[in-house]
């Protein structure tokens, strides 16, 4: 599933290791270096290149928002075309909105909203409805998780 890029095997292995996460110990890249057979310096260099090329979006802490006290909600909305841009800017300005997509179909805006309490979420959705005269803004609470995968195997294809 790789796009043609100047990635080699060491890059793919490195991406897999970086997705699994750095060891939380003194010399994390030393552990990777031993696995990949390249130096720490080269690992840092390759990682920087993968970030500049945009293959790695971010290298940092991945937190459990639930354990941090936040709950997230998927929201789908029908937003008329003439106000779509303004509504998107309003939604995106909320710091708890982490993902927002324009999608095909009747509900054409889908975003995830993380808040510390239900009242904050409800108030924001009410303000969105009021400000843009939207009658179709629906929260879709998660009832059960069947799969949550964030690992993309770079060596599998």
């Amino acid at each position, binding site marked *: 599933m790789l796009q043609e890029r100047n990635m080699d095997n060491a890059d793919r292995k490195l991406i897999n290791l970086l997705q699994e996460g750095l060891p939380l110990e003194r010399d994390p890249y030393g552990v990777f270096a031993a696995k990949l057979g390249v130096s720490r310096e080269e690992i840092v260099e390759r990682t920087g290149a993968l970030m500049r090329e945009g293959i790695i979006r971010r290298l*940092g802490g991945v937190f459990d928002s639930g354990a941090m006290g936040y709950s997230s909600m998927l929201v789908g909305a029908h937003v008329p075309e003439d106000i779509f841009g303004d509504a998107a800017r309003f939604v995106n300005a909320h710091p708890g909105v982490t993902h*927002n997509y324009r999608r095909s179909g009747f509900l054409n805006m889908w975003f995830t909203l993380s808040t510390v309490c239900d009242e904050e979420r409800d108030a924001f959705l009410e303000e969105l409805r009021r400000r843009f005269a939207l009658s179709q803004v629906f929260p879709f609470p998660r009832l059960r998780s069947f799969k949550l995968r964030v690992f993309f195997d770079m060596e599998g294809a």
Partner: protein
Amino acid sequence: MDELDLRLIAELQENLPLTVAPYRTLAERLGVSEETVIARLQALHASGKLKRIGAVLRHQNSGYAANAMVVFKAPPDEMERLGKLLAESPLVSHCYERAPCAEWPYTLYAMMHGRNMETIEEFVSIFALEHGVERFDILRSEEELKKSSLSFF
């Protein structure tokens, strides 16, 4: 969590410093020892707050050119079986049961990623046909309006 945890979390929400000893660099920025940073990281991990320090990929650039949220109206007594089947597909990254509403009858959601949209469409139509799911919809990702990590505090 104390002040140091909060400062450490704030640092970790940015990109990790690109140095051969990133935790030492963090320690220097925070004015504490490398051992302290590592101990704090391990404690945040043990409490479940920090899942990992790692890379998040940009799917499109990593070869998953087509992305869609696929929704099915799954019969309640079939939910478990269909959800687990979808979860087995390598095309599916996330799969949830969600509450429907009067205007939106779908209850089973799958985030799907493929080389192209045809791969996803073919999988979905075969899946729906095989399992007698009469109502479903493929919501293509037409534009990424925002994608970020949640900022805490």
